[in-house]
């Protein structure tokens, strides 16, 4: 598998993630879509790392994974808190502040 193919897959995954954020209303699914974006970045990092023969990319991928874990923890906590208050995780109902 060449680098070009890896990057194609990566960009496709990234776009899928972006579209997931734009189109879904369930906050948890949006969070999952963000995870897909981060994974697309990780794929690119590791592909570049292999291509360049430098381990730095893998290290950053490791950090990204950890950051994703931290974000997931906080994000799910926010979802939980909102659910307690409103019994819904639909982001479209989060519309008290506008204009």
């Amino acid at each position, binding site marked *: *598998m060449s680098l070009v193919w890896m990057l194609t897959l990566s960009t496709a995954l990234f776009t899928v993630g972006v579209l997931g954020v734009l189109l879904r209303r369930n906050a948890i699914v949006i969070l999952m879509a963000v995870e897909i974006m981060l994974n697309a970045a990780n794929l690119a990092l590791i592909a570049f790392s292999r291509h360049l023969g430098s381990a730095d990319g893998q290290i950053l991928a490791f950090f990204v*994974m950890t950051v994703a*874990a931290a974000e997931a923890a906080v994000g799910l906590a926010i979802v939980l808190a909102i659910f307690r208050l409103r019994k819904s995780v639909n982001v479209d109902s989060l519309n008290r502040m506008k204009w």
Partner: protein
Amino acid sequence: METLVGIVAAATALIGAIAAVTHRNAVVGVLFLVLNLVSLAVFYVLLSAPFIAALQVILYAGAIMVLFLFIIMLLDLRREEERESGLLQKVLSVIGGGVFFLLLWGAATGGAAPAAAELPEHFGSVESIAVALFTTYLIPFETISVLLLVAMVGAVLLTRKGGR
């Protein structure tokens, strides 16, 4: 053989991702996301990153996704509330996403990439990653620990019962 595995993994990764963000049932979505993550782990192995591949399966697919699943089950959110709205949003999103993809893809893969470098010995091994983490990347590594701690504290603050 490797190419075949690669093609299959690419296909499952893409299918997993698409299904994860489109499936109405969030539980199924998470399971598809796990499929996507595992497929990516296969790539990591192919790309000489066995340690990251292992982490991907253990930490990402194993731990984080279980957290997602747990929350979805806890809140009983299997089905998204039905309320179709925002046709404009959908159309613009798809167009915008398409344009963005074309720009991204065109720029990422438009020309011939320079030749791949020779891999050093032990490339991607646990040992070499560990060495880098504890020497060059010591500071970020320590930062990560603070980050995880603060995320944990934050999650507790947001979800615990009662006030101060």
